[in-house]
């Protein structure tokens, strides 16, 4: 089980999206290394929210960014 499922319940099953901060972007593969607020790092699909830049906040569900947060919740 990956860290994302390490809590009592699975956030993906729960239809929950989490905010993450972009650390590094691989434009060619449409992937980004992102950090959750708890410090966990994860590779995220960014194809649905391109363009993406480091330090941006993304809403991530099941390893895929589904929306920009624009710095606010």
């Amino acid at each position, binding site marked *: 089980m*990956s860290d994302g499922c390490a809590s009592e319940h699975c956030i993906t099953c729960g239809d929950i999206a989490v905010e993450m901060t972009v650390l590094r972007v691989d434009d060619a593969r449409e992937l980004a290394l992102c950090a959750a607020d708890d410090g966990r790092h994860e590779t995220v699909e960014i194809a649905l929210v391109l363009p993406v830049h480091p330090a941006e906040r993304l809403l991530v*569900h099941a390893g895929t960014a589904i929306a920009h947060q624009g710095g606010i919740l």
Partner: protein
Amino acid sequence: MRFVDEFRDAELGRAVSGQILSLVEPGRHYKLMEVCGGHTHSIYKYGIDDLLPANVELVHGPGCPVCVIPMGRVDDGIAVAHEDGVIFTCFGDMMRVPGSDGSLLEAKAAGADIRMVYSPLDALRIAKQNPGREVVFFAIGFETTAPSTALTLKRARAEGVPNFTVMCSHVTIVPPLRALLESPDLRLDGFIGPGHVSTVVGARPFEFIPADYGKPIVIAGFEPLDILQAIEMILRQLAAGRCEVENQYRRVVPYEGNLRALEVMAEVFELRPHFEWRGLGFISHSGLKLTEAYAELDAEVRFSVPGIRVADPKACQCGEVLKGVIKPWECKVFGTACTPERPIGTCMVSSEGACAAYYNFGRFAREREVV
């Protein structure tokens, strides 16, 4: 409001609660359905219903991805997981959903190679690491999750990963809402619309609710003040005799949704003629399957899937809970034979399930005291 603390501010919450009180007509009973399991979870986690007048009732809807998976579909997954050479992957809570002869977790204990993953991309990674094995991803969830599966399928095809397939059990949110609105045993006054699903599909798909059924719907975020404000907006519509789609969660949800996500989904998925929902039965055009173009990545094409319909246990009343006809604690087995540790029904499995939310946040004891 810009930051999370403000969305949990007790003073602001009480102020919105006061506005809600000023909008309700004494003697009228309001039934509002929160569609999304995430809202159910927040409502009981933060005690939002305690801030509402007694005549405003929140009814829990069918928006928990795990809760709506029927037993037969779990059995199908277990059958595929037992095939020689298969590594079967799925999200965490799905492991504990009971089938007719146990759960995926029990099948794993019995020797099947079943692994929990956080994302479809994790499952694809496992496939690349195990080229001699067949890796199947059990895809569940609404439109929030379906784009992730679609992107992974496109990636699997582009990278030429021949040993990766998807057993698609994705569902869509609009058909069950229509089914609920057609249901004679449920009278609703309005809907708190799903926040994260709407991030993908936008607000437009919900326009039929006011247009065809004359009910207001307000798409809402998941913080306590989001939900309270959405309730206030619904009641304001009702007080003014309006019914519209409104978007309380504008900081995330564009009215048109995520067009790129919708494009990807349209390329990879098509609607099934029918799909079975736990407790709701078969609903037309409510489930997704892979398109012909992606048939080589379809586990239901590559493997033999029993596809046998299995009736829910008689004692379990998940169907009535999912339709909002009864409260979780009114189910005969709630908190006794059915608990989060040993769930009988799906609503007790996921934290978004109405029964689990009631149980985990102590509503069981409180409701019983009131009775």
